[in-house]
């Protein structure tokens, strides 16, 4: 059940000069969500109005804690990044669809760019609990954009990195690392979250090799409840092959979509 719950900021961990992991304590959100789902946080600050969507990054149900990865990109994220410890915010959730674990015998391969890594920490926590090891590809502009690398290593995941400036790992984009992994694991299940261009490249590779691919789409959202229709993605489901397709809501039919449903050429977001 969705709730609008008061959550108290109890800890912050700096991840880079402009990104941090915020830990909140709240009665039920930490135990009621599935990896890939998100929460709408009430905006704090002068003139700010709409809530902001954040993927749940990690959870510690025994302490009623969950975390969100926040990178400062505008007024709303700045206000949240500057929220003092002990202050509370209202969190509406859990919202949206979630990642399905890989089918028996399929190797999970995760491709994440920048803050797109956020939903995968709790996902890998649950994979680790089931004795699975995911291949995690992290991409960013610089070394410090490779958030949470050590957390994934600690969970026993295999991590490879790419940076555009070559300051850590492969010099280039994270999708450069994917063909080798897809060669190595004939039966794979892809997961991705990050910039639109990256998602699209992963989707192309997945389609070429017929690898199932779940993608988490980031959109500006007004309500998170399926009512404002502000967050749509143009999609066509396999059973609708004859139809033109339709706009579906990233907050309700997503944020996790089967990548084959998304008509990328109709997606206006910059590559």
């Amino acid at each position: 059940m969705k709730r609008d719950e008061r959550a108290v900021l109890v800890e912050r961990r700096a991840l880079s000069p402009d990104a941090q992991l915020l830990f909140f304590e709240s009665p039920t959100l930490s135990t009621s969500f599935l990896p890939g789902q998100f929460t709408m946080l009430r905006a704090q600050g002068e003139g700010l109005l709409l809530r902001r969507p954040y993927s749940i990054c990690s959870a510690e149900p025994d302490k009623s804690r969950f975390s969100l990865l926040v990178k400062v990109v505008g007024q709303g994220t700045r206000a949240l990044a500057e929220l003092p410890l002990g202050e509370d915010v209202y969190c509406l959730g859990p919202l949206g669809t979630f990642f399905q674990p890989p089918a028996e015998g399929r190797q999970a391969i995760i491709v994440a760019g920048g803050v797109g890594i956020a939903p995968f920490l709790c996902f890998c926590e649950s994979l680790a609990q089931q004795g699975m090891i995911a291949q995690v590809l992290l991409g960013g502009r610089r070394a410090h954009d490779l958030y949470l690398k050590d957390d994934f290593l600690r969970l026993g995941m295999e991590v490879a990195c790419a940076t555009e400036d070559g300051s850590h790992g492969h010099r280039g984009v994270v999708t450069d690392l994917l063909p080798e992994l897809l060669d190595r694991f004939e039966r794979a299940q892809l997961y991705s979250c990050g910039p639109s261009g990256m998602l699209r490249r992963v989707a192309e590779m997945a389609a070429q090799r017929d690898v199932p691919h779940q993608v988490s789409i980031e959109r500006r959202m007004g309500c998170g409840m399926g009512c404002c229709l502000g967050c749509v993605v143009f999609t066509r489901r396999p059973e609708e092959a004859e139809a033109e397709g339709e706009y579906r809501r990233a907050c309700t039919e997503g944020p996790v979509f089967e990548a084959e449903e998304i008509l990328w050429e109709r997606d206006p977001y910059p590559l």
Partner: protein
Amino acid sequence: MHPDLSVEISGLSLTTPLIAASGTFGYGTEYRDVVDYSALGAIVVKGLYLNPRPGCPPPRIWETPSGMLNAIGLQEIGVARFIEEKLPELRGLGPAILVNICGSTLEEYGELARILNDVEGVSGIEINISCPNVKEGGILFGCDPDLAARVTEIVRAGTRLPVIPKLSPNVTDIAAVARRVESAGADALSLINTIPAMAIDVETRRPRLANVVGGLSGPAIRPIAVRLVYQTAQAVKIPVIGMGGIATAADALEFIIAGARAVQIGTMNFVDPSVWSRTLAGLEDYCRRHRLSSISELTGTLRAEGAMPSGW
């Protein structure tokens, strides 16, 4: 003493004066987990045409100071699917159900009115003649008093249900439009729809919305809405339903004192789903403090004899 918070709008009895605004409450059931539906007198469902529509390409929303800019373009499922798939679940929830209808042609409005007339559970029709984000219909009808009156007449002829044209703020003389649709058979009026507006990213010189222009809602537009409700209520005898950025009981009271019989809440429900119970509690408290036995006594009671500048 329990103040009476129920209101009557041209034969339509509502348990509270709070109504969910069209386009902000989906097809009525989406907020079940987090909204106290007993605080709602009615729900106006998302605008419906005869046939489904895809809506505008994204990006569709943007935030401005205390405001929300949107160009959704009336993505909707068509009236038949609404009746078949959405209405059965909505009927049992308590609030009266009002259906917002849109047409690309005058005939389409009439056809929708006839279809909805015999549908169990529908208590009234709000006529959308004010959406700023569709090419045909919408605001074109609302900005021309003659067309607004013709749409109202056609809907009136098609149904016994209360007919409520929703007016656009984008007119020079709201009183003239209001009087025309009143004469054309409207049972009540609702206002305001969003205000046509736009925002630009200066670094790229690109518009924030794919549709370039959208409609502005939220607290940013409230004083404009209060003024339009005031001018409308002065001009007509039929009840007025006010809306525009209501976030608190005090905001709702402004509209009621300006002349509204009931109010709609939209954007602020996105921000805080507890707005309904909070606002209703605030109205009850106000009635107690001001010794009003009924909230209806307050409608149109602005004391225009002098201004009140304190509390700056």
